[in-house]
């Protein structure tokens, strides 16, 4: 639609043209009607009477026209309103509109269905009441701080995408929703008048994810008994017949590899299913990085694994999980630099956090695939000459582990030059004090 698109609702008559035509006709009438009257009717009582009647008639016609115009315009507005309403109600995703005072000002049919309410007035309440009523939480069940509501952030001018939250319906059932929210400005660059939030029900997808994770967990679990039998028999045979040793050595190595993959699959699915709580302890992350490099050293013969920068880094973290993250990043660095070269790890201490980076001089990540690197099951090098295997679960899990500790993970990569993966963890200042004392 063009700027004049709204003419549909005033039946194609533009305000300026109406006013111009009116001015023209009325001007001509004032100019000529008096002269016409003077020419036709001689001065006198009759003339005065006709003058008055002419004035009355003019007012009458003008009033009639005004009435007609206003009615048409109001009809247009009503139609516009009805169409907007019907459009909102036909949208399958729930829509909430919040006004500048932080009050839910409007909601569509899907929003009522999503929350299980029958009457719109039940949800047209201030946001804090709304949040309390529907037990709003983050996707992991943690409470949402009042200024963290997506719509409130949108009222401050932010556009939020793909934010996940949980609502409790009036029937007590929890729904998982993906929320996106945006500020509404009537004029471009003008003040934010409203915020609009779109809530998509992702409960089904989540349930499917959970089922899949449970399936993976069961499958990985079931692999372990046959693996145990094959591995042990290979070892037994090797002990008994030295002649067959090389072949059995290969079997053993491959079984170990399969075991590692199965273990990785189990860890991911267990982690995804919520698994055991994090077991945090206070320790020096720099020491752990050094150990992780040491452990990889004999598996990376063509590489030099260097700790180029090191600072004491006390953290309060789940040592095993962070160990998985480091193992993942270092393994990737080795895997994706098949030509060998230096792998440089650095432990940098910032003001409130510690930054770990692992840099390789490897194949790098193609630019067009960089955006998907952290996606679960995504393998940037799948089917290319640089496909060195793996299941595409390591980075996704690593990033989530880091996020659960309150840190961030990112990377920089130049195809043909190499990649640097970095993450931060909050520093544990209590651990600092302990070290100082």
């Amino acid at each position, binding site marked *: 639609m063009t700027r004049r698109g709204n003419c549909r609702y005033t039946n194609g008559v533009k305000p300026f043209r109406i006013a111009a035509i009116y001015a023209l006709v009325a001007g001509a009438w004032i100019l000529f009607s008096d002269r016409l009257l003077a020419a036709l009717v001689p001065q006198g009582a009759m003339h005065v009477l006709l003058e008055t009647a002419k004035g009355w008639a003019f007012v009458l016609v003008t009033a009639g026209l005004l009435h007609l115009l206003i009615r048409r315009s109001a009809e247009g507005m009503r139609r516009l309103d009805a169409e907007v309403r019907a459009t909102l109600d036909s949208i399958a995703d729930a829509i909430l509109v919040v006004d500048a005072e932080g009050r839910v000002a409007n909601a569509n049919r899907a929003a009522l269905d999503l929350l299980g309410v029958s009457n719109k007035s039940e949800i047209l309440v201030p946001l804090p009441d709304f949040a309390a009523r529907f037990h709003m939480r983050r996707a992991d069940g943690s409470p949402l701080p009042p200024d963290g509501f997506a719509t409130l952030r949108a009222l401050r001018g932010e556009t939020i995408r793909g934010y996940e939250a949980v609502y409790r319906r009036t029937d007590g059932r929890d729904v998982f929703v993906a929320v996106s929210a945006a500020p509404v400005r009537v004029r471009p660059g003008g003040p934010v008048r409203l915020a609009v939030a779109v809530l998509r029900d992702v409960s089904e997808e989540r349930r499917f994810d959970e089922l899949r994770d449970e399936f993976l967990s069961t499958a990985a679990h079931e692999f372990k*008994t046959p693996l145990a039998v094959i591995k*042990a*028999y290979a070892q*037994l045979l090797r002990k008994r017949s030295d002649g067959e040793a090389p072949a059995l050595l290969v079997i053993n190595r491959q079984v170990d590899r399969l075991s590692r993959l199965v273990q990785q699959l189990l860890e991911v699915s267990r982690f995804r299913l919520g698994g055991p709580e994090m077991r945090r302890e206070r320790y020096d992350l720099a020491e752990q990085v050094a150990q992780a490099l040491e452990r990889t050293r004999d598996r990376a013969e063509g590489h030099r694994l260097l700790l180029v920068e090191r600072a004491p880094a006390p953290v309060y973290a789940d040592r095993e999980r962070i160990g998985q993250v480091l193992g993942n990043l270092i393994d990737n660095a080795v895997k994706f630099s098949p030509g060998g070269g230096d792998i440089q790890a650095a432990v940098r201490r910032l003001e409130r956090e510690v930054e770990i980076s692992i840099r390789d001089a490897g194949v790098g990540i193609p630019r067009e695939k960089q955006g998907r690197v952290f996606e679960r099951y995504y393998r940037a090098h799948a089917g290319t000459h640089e496909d060195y295997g793996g299941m595409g679960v390591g980075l996704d899990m690593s990033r989530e582990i880091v996020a659960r500790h309150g840190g961030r993970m990112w990377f920089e990569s130049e195809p043909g030059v190499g990649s640097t993966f970095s993450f931060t963890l909050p520093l544990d200042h209590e651990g600092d004090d302990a070290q100082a004392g």
Partner: protein
Amino acid sequence: MPRPGSVLVVEDDPDLVDLMAVILQDAGYRVATATDGLEALARIEAEMPSLILLDMRMPRMNGWEFAGEFRTRWDRSCPIVVVTAAENARLRAEEIGADGWLEKPFELEDVVRMVERHVGPA
């Protein structure tokens, strides 16, 4: 008194039962086997072993049920070592108050070492 050196392997996978028997017999131990908890209880009625290697997930009577029943009937007359594919073998062992755990897949030496620790050298 249990005759020294007898190990009861409770495991529903026949190949794994055979494997355990081969490993332990090679190391010089006497081995009895059962494919589920009920069968294991019957074996123990006949002869108290000096160690039980216990799988957790089995048909008819699983490891948890077996451990409960065993403790009720015979208290702590012989140590139990859990052999499991569960990702947290140690937790499983703690759950039933077992004396040790082996995680699948294991190294040959791990099995022998574990048996040695509880029964002594064959």
